[in-house]
């Protein structure tokens, strides 16, 4: 069966998509060194730079969040594959500065190995960089070793918070502290209903039976563990928000941000229905939700499903969420 995707030579996908994105949003981003997306207008190098890395095929993430008040650079690998260490090192060199760099790494084997190698090399070259690793997928358990938790869409609100802090001129240590605090107070759970097609090899990833869904699906269709018959939107929302509340520890009076991150084919219509129920359950418990997001942020090709991301917010995080942002896919006036 022919793959139902609009593509040219599969080995050029990453190159072409980055060219397309930067052509479309030419007022916000540009492409340098083939795989590094940076702001069209760089911010003052007196401020801390925020850099992140990741595979492609998850658009708009990660490059779509480069811009004022968000990332300074994203380093792209290839479809579902982290960039190699040399490319990441190149990016760190580009942003070498007194103020320092925060590198955000999602906890996946490939990303971690590239980051570790690049960080060792950067250190040798005297590049000042602190790493924040996101590991917020609670599908394998809430109280397990963070090293066992994958990084899913929670990196995106993290970019927002630390990006805003960097824009305000906060120091490397301050940003690291408030970023880690944010990082530890967020949790994500994913659910899938269909598999997806790998755009380079046409292989189908994560086939699910016709009447089943799976809570706990990973960022690339990797299986999770919570298969069940298809539940209603409200049942699904309830089943996901409960462990997320437990994991983040939100309680009455706390502020929180709820994000429903569509991973592909699931419509915004459905995401709104799910959001409504989950937000209602938070409200029932007395949690104050700040304006959230229903949108595709970090996707898994055309897979049907979504990630529910819950972030417990401290007062400084609430303020940073409101700060101006101007990336292609997260804009705050």
């Amino acid at each position, binding site marked *: 069966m022919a793959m139902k995707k609009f593509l040219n030579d599969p080995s050029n996908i990453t190159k072409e998509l980055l060219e397309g994105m930067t052509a479309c949003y030419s007022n916000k981003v540009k492409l340098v060194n083939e795989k590094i997306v940076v702001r069209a207008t760089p911010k003052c190098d007196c401020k801390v730079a925020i850099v992140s890395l990741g595979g492609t095929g998850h658009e708009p993430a990660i490059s779509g969040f480069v811009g004022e008040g968000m990332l300074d650079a994203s380093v792209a690998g290839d479809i579902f594959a982290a960039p190699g260490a040399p490319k990441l090192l190149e990016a760190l060199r580009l942003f070498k500065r007194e103020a320092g760099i925060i590198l955000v790494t999602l906890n996946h*084997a490939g990303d971690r190995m590239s980051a570790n190698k690049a960080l060792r090399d950067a250190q040798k070259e005297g590049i000042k960089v602190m790493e924040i690793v996101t590991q917020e997928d609670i599908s394998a358990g809430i109280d397990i070793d963070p090293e066992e938790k*994958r990084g899913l869409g929670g990196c995106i609100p993290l970019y927002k918070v630390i990006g805003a802090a960097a824009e305000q001129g906060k120091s490397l240590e301050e940003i690291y502290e408030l970023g880690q605090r944010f990082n530890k107070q967020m949790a994500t759970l994913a659910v899938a209903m269909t598999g997806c097609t790998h755009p380079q*090899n046409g292989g189908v990833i994560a086939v699910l039976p016709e009447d089943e869904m799976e809570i706990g699906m990973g960022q690339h269709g990797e299986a999770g563990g919570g298969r069940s018959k298809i539940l209603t939107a409200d049942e699904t929302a309830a089943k996901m928000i409960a462990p997320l509340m437990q994991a983040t520890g939100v309680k009455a009076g706390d502020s929180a941000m709820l994000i429903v991150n569509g991973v592909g084919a699931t419509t915004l219509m459905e995401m709104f229905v799910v959001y409504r129920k989950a937000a209602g359950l938070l409200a029932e418990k007395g949690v104050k939700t700040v304006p959230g997001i229903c949108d595709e942020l970090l996707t898994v090709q055309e897979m049907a499903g979504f990630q529910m991301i819950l972030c417990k917010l401290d007062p400084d995080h609430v303020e940073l969420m409101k700060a101006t942002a101007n990336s292609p896919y997260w804009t705050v006036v």
Partner: protein
Amino acid sequence: MLTLQKFKEMMVAAGVDIRASEKHFSELDAASGGDGDHGTAIVTAFNAMDKVTEAGCFKRYLKALTDTLQNEACGSTSTLYGSWLQGMSDAAPEKVTELDAPAVATLFKGGLEEIGFTTKARVGDKTLMDALIPATEALCAAAGSGVPAMFKAGAEAAQKGSEATRAMRAKFGRAKNLGERSIGPVDAGSASMATIFTSFAKAF
């Protein structure tokens, strides 16, 4: 004796065999709960290495392979194979184009040591290490019997190690969240590693 020329031929042979099984490796990746792209990744790596023209000596050839691979390949493969080749290059004596049996053992030992710094995975964790560790050990143990016997022993051990991953639960890489359900299929990375050792033995 292993000449640099022969080693290059072995690399080319491995590339041919790896390409022939590209789809199989991706399917294994998906079957055990990974993201279904290991074939794509390992073929990209060999395509990159094919571009290397450096011919000076083992050390420089292996270093050139390392750099090209790390620059062009992405994902786990980039860093894992990068470390393996880097370790071999570091272990190779300067300006040498022929290696005797003990020197070949030293080369592969160096590769294993370096990759061991990059990943904590060991035998039993259902990764390429399940092929690479026993292969390296068997290859080194056969050093007394000469280079051809070394590669033969390496190939056998790699295949056996890879086969053994069927019964294992993944603890590293993308498949790790699958738990019990990762039991059954062979680990994709171990399968490609076993293919490489088998190609080496055939091409020697």
